[in-house]
């Protein structure tokens, strides 16, 4: 009997079977759907952008960790997710070195500088995109194509902002048949992927719901050309990177609040800022900046939304 050597640890001795790589795998599954859709819509170019971006993200992470003699954790999937999301935010005609540099910046400066997975305060993909928009504005804000036919065209948000061109039909927007970044157009597929993640309990529905809801509300109230309450809600919701951002970027665990109320505030804030920038700002699209700004506020949101423990009726007087 005494031959047995028991592991002695403190309770609990039981763990859930969900672990970080599995959660990342679910996200990758959902993003893979989007990647397939964008390849169908924009062809080989989309595939090339995705490939380069993901490879750059993986290579950047591996090289950095090798250089610092840290264990290489590319296998956890987080770098691949960043690479995919950066690729999805590229115009179809972007030069391939742009997503490569964006991924490298996202992984190294935004994530690894702060200690790697779990320690960054900003969503790497969103920050990477914002970096690219400021660094090479021309490459990032031109080169739009309509899917399949390869004709250059303005994006719906540019049209809403006053550029010449016509708005696609609602069903075309849903299927992704419109000009835009390669991964943001296929609304239906993004919706399916997002709902899959909610079903798998990977992401909290509160953030996408409050995010999209707030944008829709503001678009309806202030977005119209013939006075209040005449805005084109559907176009606003389906265009730009709103769905992609709401389901895949604003819900990033690391850079969104951990409390339930905090997540609701995160979504509301993202929606408010997106509407602000879209309707009255200098850029046609505000999703990325809205997410980044709320990332910046996340530590404070967490701080202010720490719940009162069970059984505490009044605020405890500390001292």
């Amino acid at each position, binding site marked *: 009997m005494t031959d047995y050597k028991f592991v002695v640890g403190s309770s609990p001795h039981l763990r859930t079977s969900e672990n970080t790589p599995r959660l990342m795998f679910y996200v990758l599954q959902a993003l893979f759907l989007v990647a397939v859709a964008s390849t169908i819509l924009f062809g080989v170019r989309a595939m090339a952008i995705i490939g380069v971006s993901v490879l750059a993200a993986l290579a950047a992470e591996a090289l950095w960790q090798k250089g610092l003699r840290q264990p290489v954790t590319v296998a956890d999937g987080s770098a691949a997710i960043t690479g995919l999301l950066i690729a999805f935010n590229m115009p179809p005609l972007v030069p391939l070195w742009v997503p490569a540099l964006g991924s490298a910046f996202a992984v190294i400066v935004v994530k690894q500088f702060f200690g790697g997975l779990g320690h960054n*305060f900003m969503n790497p993909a969103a920050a990477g995109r914002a970096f690219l928009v400021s660094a090479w504005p021309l490459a990032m804000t031109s080169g739009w194509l309509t899917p399949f036919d390869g004709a250059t065209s303005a994006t719906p948000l540019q049209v809403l902002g006053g550029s010449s061109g016509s708005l696609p039909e609602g069903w075309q927007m849903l299927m992704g048949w419109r000009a835009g970044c390669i991964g943001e157009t296929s609304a239906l597929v993004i919706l399916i992927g997002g709902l899959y993640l909610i079903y798998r309990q990977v992401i909290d529905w509160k953030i996408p719901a409050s995010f999209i809801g707030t944008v829709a509300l503001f678009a309806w109230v202030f977005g119209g050309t013939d006075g209040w309450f005449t805005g084109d809600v559907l176009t606003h919701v389906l265009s730009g990177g709103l769905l992609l951002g709401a389901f895949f970027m604003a819900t990033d665990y690391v850079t969104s609040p951990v409390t339930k109320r905090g997540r609701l505030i995160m979504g509301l804030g993202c929606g408010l800022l997106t509407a602000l920038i879209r309707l009255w700002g200098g*850029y046609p699209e505000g999703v990325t900046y809205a997410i980044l700004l709320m990332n910046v506020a996340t*530590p404070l949101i967490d701080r202010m939304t720490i719940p009162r423990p069970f059984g505490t009726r009044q605020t405890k007087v500390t001292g």
Partner: protein
Amino acid sequence: MEIIAILLGGVLINNLVFAQFLGLCPFVGVSKNVEMATGMSAAVLFVMTMAAGVTALLHSLVLDPYGLTYLETVTFILVISSLVQFVETFLRKASPVLHRSLGIYLPLITTNCAVMGAALISVRQGYGVGLSAVNGFAGALGWSLAIILFAGIRERLELASVPEALKGIPVALVTTGLMAIAFLGFQGLFRFLF
């Protein structure tokens, strides 16, 4: 309308920290935790609003009419340091409670180039006394927003495993840079106001 434009501009678009590089020393120095950052912010709000108003008054009453604008630098810095002194003494007498909470931050403000900067900007923009005070207030509000957000992130970074070489100031600067990227989103906001 102009007041709204100045406020929006000062807080979001031309943020002292993220767009104008003013007040960086205390921004990095007094942002270890949110409480300190809030205390400093209150002190800065107070002093900066007053300093911008008083220097604008000095400019429009004395320096400009008598062709003494070349004395701007000397007079402004003297006015600001004596103002800080005065505020400190006044607070100690008038409101010991407020003094206790703001007291330690007040001496640090003299070296806060944001105060002097806001005063200089106001004069250069040709604002009158009232608008100068609003401009000072807006600038201080933007600075406060920046430092409080920054302090929140730094509290979190305390728990992060930042690589050795980046620990402390380097990662603080990179953080500020990333925050500045986020604030770029406000560029061109409400352009019709300006």
